[in-house]
């Protein structure tokens, strides 16, 4: 069981610090009335980091604890999804999509050989017809 909120807060705090550090390279304002490109993100990052510290103190003990296993499967699934997108950009969406859909259904728990196959093929054909052909969105370039 992990207090997920605190892990998220640590990541956001680090991001705020990184953004402040990166603004050092930003140019100065063009006029005396403008605050320039750096100031707005700096203010936001400082307020966010301050609120994270304050909230961690005042909300201590309220963070929901989440079992890692619950998060793990979905997380791995999302990584698999990213890999499928990468593969389709290399080999073509309509070669990868039916295989990815079939595998995805199997992993989530649908163990119907024929139904999964029909669904995967039908979904691929519908996407090709609707988006690629009818709406002229070049899905084959995905």
């Amino acid at each position, binding site marked *: 069981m992990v207090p997920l909120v605190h892990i998220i807060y640590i990541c956001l705090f680090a991001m705020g610090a990184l953004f402040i550090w990166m603004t050092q390279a930003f140019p100065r304002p063009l006029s005396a009335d403008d605050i320039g490109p750096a100031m707005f993100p700096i203010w936001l990052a400082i307020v966010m980091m301050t609120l994270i510290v304050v909230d961690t103190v005042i909300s201590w003990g309220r963070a929901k604890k989440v079992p890692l296993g619950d998060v793990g499967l979905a997380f791995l699934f999302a990584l698999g999804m990213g890999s499928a997108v990468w593969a389709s950009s290399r080999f073509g969406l309509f070669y990868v999509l039916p295989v990815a859909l079939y595998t995805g259904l199997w992993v989530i728990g649908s163990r119907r050989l024929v139904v999964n196959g029909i669904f995967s093929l039908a*979904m691929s054909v519908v996407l090709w017809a609707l988006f690629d052909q009818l709406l002229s969105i070049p899905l084959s370039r995905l």
Partner: protein
Amino acid sequence: MIIDGLMAGAEILAQPTILLGVLIGVMIGMSFGVTPGLDATSGTALLVSATFALPMEVAIGALLGLYTAATYAGSITAITIGVPGTPASAATVLDGFPMSKAGKLDRALSISITASVIGGIFGTVALVFLAVPLAEFALNFGAPEYFALGLLGVAIIASLVHGMFLSGFILAIFGLLITTIGIDPFTGYPRFTFGNMNLIEGVPYIPALVGLFAISEALSLISEKTDRNATVHKPKFFAYSMGWGLLRKIGRATAIGSIVGAILGAIPAAGAAAANWIGYNEARRFSRHPDEFGKGSEEGLAAAESSNNGTVSSALVPLLAFGIPGSATAAVLLGAMMLHGVTPGPSLFVENPALVYFIFLALVIANIFMLGFGIFGVSFWVRLVQLPKPFIVMTILTLSVVGAFSVRNNVFDVYVAIGLGIFGFLLRRAGLSVVPIVLAIVLGALIEENFRRGLIASNSGMWVFVERPITAVILAITVVTFLAPLVRAARVQLAGRRTSKAAGQR
């Protein structure tokens, strides 16, 4: 003026392709609404991509149809299996499901569709009479007022997030920080792009919305352990049984629900889910039979349904009058409209009034189409309730990938959607909400640009935000909104100390 506008709007709506767009939007909305895990917001985010190639009016008509129907269709799931299809139908379960268990399924579905349509049309009338004068008033607004309004919109939504006391504000600021990525609009300097050309225009917001709403929802469904194989009560193809007597019986509750929905919808962040409960409670308070509520009360069901659909149109009041979305779905609609070259706000009433009135009328027509689907063939939509979870998940994820890609035909956008989808999923598992981030992403550019424009034009520095009375009032409300969670935190800690002190004395 309103009559002229309505005539011009009707001329646009009368085109067959536009009516077909609304009809298809309603059908897709019905499908999304009955499917547990999908709602109007994620549905709208997913459909945006499919509307790129369509003419602007057809696209907006389809999205409004989807929004209207998805909010209603959640009640079909609530009544037939006792699980709300969308958060906006949570109170509907209390009386709708007991009615279907008692063999009054057809009657429950008839009340649900009738009350929803009455609430929806009442909300649209409220939209017309609120948005038009507010937009006229907002024509006097300058950059400082828009900066303050944008900030207030984000602050209100952030203050309503439960969980940690300040998490809503932290996530909203994170969203604002994301919008600073890309070219600075005043100096042209690329900020936080890490040399990646795909980030020059900033984080693409439609893929971001798809990730935060749809992908995170699908991932949540994967990690969910609940069994959805509940018993489904199946209605007949023609299940409508609304007579004059029944209509009179539910009249008062429907009116109360409609008024509550119309008012709460117009208030930023209140939303359909809150209206569903408040409308239900108010109807019970004014009912002659309050003891029947929760046990299959026809009045209770009517109030719950008219109130959530009453919010659908009135939620567009802040969007159309000020260009500031008051809810997550309105934020997605704003994104979609901007992609089609339409910027909602007071100037739209001057530059393209016909389009504004077309939006009003499209909402009415969507309700009428919805009535048709509610009367004939509810049995078809009920079948979707029984779809196995893996097929729902894979459909959402596939449409999400296609939707994210379609905006710029760029694979990078798909990775953005997946990344924010994972982040949104982690937030949901941690008990937090993605809505403040979404609103901040949509409003971020408006807030920074108007803040800096206000400063440059004023020559009086920060005083410009205090000198102008409207800006000062809006900013004062924003500060109060920000302080509210801190006061809540102080109260909870004080109560905790008192309890532990009392326990120690014992």
